[in-house]
């Protein structure tokens, strides 16, 4: 008994989300010498968000590679390294900088396995800090997830809390398919307990019910999970029991967890930072309508960014969905 207690004490630590990814990367690198990290400023600096802090010092410049400033080059050379048997983890410094790499991701990384009729695999992880809320200049607050969910051959996931971040980055690295890994940059400094020896972890592509409720289902991922949890807490005071699901994976999508919840609550609101129009919420609303039609008390509503470019930072609080906009949508689901 004492042994068990001692181990429990040492494996549970309080980590920021950024640190949790760092620890996950470290563990993956320790376990598999083929795991490489590559990106801009990931070495001595440890990345602009310090997610790779200390890794080059411990694993060397051959495994933690400061690359030239060229995002297409990062992905293109990662593809080549994967063909040679490596498992590169690429850091794209900011969401808005992923676009120069789109060709390599969409035409090469996503499709090369099919081109080979399954002879090769491309275990490449592309880490993308995403979303707004940090007062940044243009191109540093984007939510480009649907460009990737729309591309067959890619897997797309988003972590929302330190414990998931620690586990999911390791699962993404272990996956034999390319994984686009979104990190909610404004939550990088959020702290929570992480059990680095936890064994009861969800599979990479499972959604999680993070708060149970019976009146309405909120679907979110990445930075909006916390916002939705806050909304649910506030709604409780008004006597509304909101269920919150952290999707965690956008492609593939854990539809069973979603459908089970919506069939129970009869109401659903999707929340993301990306523009509502052609956003991931459109896919969710369509699927829920198809699968849960007779259980719905109201249409699936969507809360998200406007059909505008991401605004200057002095305006972003108006652009980003917040607790009030989420609750406004929740209220509207009761007006049908």
């Amino acid at each position, binding site marked *: 008994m004492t042994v068990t207690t001692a181990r429990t004490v040492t494996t549970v630590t309080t980590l920021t989300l950024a640190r949790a990814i760092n620890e996950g990367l470290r563990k993956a690198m320790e376990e598999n010498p083929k795991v490489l990290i590559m990106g801009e400023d990931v070495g001595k600096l440890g990345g602009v968000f310090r997610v790779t802090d200390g890794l080059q010092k411990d694993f060397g410049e051959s495994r933690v590679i400061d690359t030239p400033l*060229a995002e297409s080059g990062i992905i*293109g050379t990662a593809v*080549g390294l994967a063909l040679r048997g490596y498992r590169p983890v690429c850091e794209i410094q900011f969401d808005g900088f992923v676009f120069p790499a789109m060709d390599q991701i969409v035409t090469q990384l996503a499709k090369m396995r099919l081109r080979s009729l399954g002879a090769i695999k491309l275990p490449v992880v592309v880490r993308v800090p995403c979303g707004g809320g940090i007062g940044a200049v243009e191109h540093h607050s984007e939510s480009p997830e649907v460009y990737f969910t729309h591309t067959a051959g890619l897997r797309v996931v988003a972590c929302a809390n330190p414990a998931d971040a620690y586990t999911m980055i390791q699962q993404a690295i272990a996956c034999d398919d390319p994984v686009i890994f979104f990190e909610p940059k404004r939550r990088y400094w959020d702290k929570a307990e992480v059990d680095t020896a936890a064994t009861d972890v969800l599979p990479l592509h499972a959604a999680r019910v993070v708060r149970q409720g019976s009146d309405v289902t909120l679907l979110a991922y990445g930075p909006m999970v916390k916002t939705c949890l806050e909304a649910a807490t506030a709604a409780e005071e008004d006597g509304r029991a909101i269920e919150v699901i952290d999707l965690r994976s956008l492609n593939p999508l854990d539809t069973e967890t979603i459908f089970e919840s919506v069939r129970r609550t009869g109401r659903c609101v999707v929340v993301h930072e990306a523009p509502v129009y052609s956003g991931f919420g459109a896919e969710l609303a369509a699927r829920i309508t198809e699968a849960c039609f007779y259980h719905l008390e109201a249409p699936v509503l969507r809360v998200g960014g406007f059909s505008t470019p991401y605004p200057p930072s002095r305006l972003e609080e108006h652009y980003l969905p917040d607790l009030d906009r989420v609750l406004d949508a929740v209220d509207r689901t009761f007006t049908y």
Partner: protein
Amino acid sequence: MTFDASRDAQAPPELVQLLTPEGERVDHPDYDIDLTPEEIRGLYRDLVLVRRIDLEAVSLQRQGELGIWASLLGQEAAQIGSGRALTDADMAFPTYREHGVAWCRDVDPVKLLGLFRGVSHGGWDPTEHNFHLYTIVIGSQTLHAVGYAMGIQRDGAEAAAIVYFGDGATSQGDVNESFIWASVTNAPVVFFCQNNQWAISEPLEKQTRIPLYRRASGFGFPGIRVDGNDVFACLAVTRKALADARSGQGPTLIEAYTYRMGAHTTSDDPTRYRVAEELEAWKLKDPIERVKAYLFKNQLADQAFFDAIDAEAEALGRDVRKRCLEMPDPDPMAIFQHVYAERHPLLEEEREQFAAYLATFESEA
């Protein structure tokens, strides 16, 4: 290496040539090659056979058996010379026109035809032949080759990567990024640019104001122009560049100066943008004729040899045609295969739905 931009910009382009269009052996101060008569006859055979495969593919396209074909006509020496310079451990990254290199890597020509017939997007195992899949997006594969070469470095292996691309590709960002990457990482990679003078309808002067091989010096590694219709020179120059790469001396850009004697693809019509005299002038520099002349003049082969190669080529053409026509269309369910390495519930769901949909037609019949 040192580089004097003012001198280099003014100097006329230099060209490595070891065999003239008339079939005369010439010396070069930096490059030499010592080939046995057997090896020279082997190169001749390669050149003739890949031209014959290409001819058959063009015919098959004209008869509606291939959707499209990108002919290598005129570029046989560049591809066979460089392809035969590779060791088994080296890795080649082609465009969609490297049928001659594929031949050197023992890829079944019918697999190449399968791509253009539309039965797959590739379909050979790159690791089996150390010949990567055809890349259709212009220049993307240069970065893959550099990444692969970075892997070779980390493995400490005795190998190099070679990547093929054309004159048009040199304008692509990926190619320029790959030059930078290779340079700063000193990657064991050879950039083999077949300058065939035309990017579909755009002549070389739409891509560059300096000879392409001179671009390398701006990136910090050597560039060299070789007579791309001279199989000896292409072999010698590529061997040296690969040896340099394997021994830690970093990348080389080879510009194989050649000519696309056919159309860009079977969908193209070069009469709209280039004059017939240009083709006639290049025909005099044909890559095969000069080797034949050399073999004849030096009595290294007799008429019986040439007849035998021609007969082999005809048999190969017939075989390629036969097996192309025998290629079955894939099963409709093949659409869902090989998209992911691991399970993907959405694909499984769509596959089941589509199979059920197709089954409704079977029950009606």
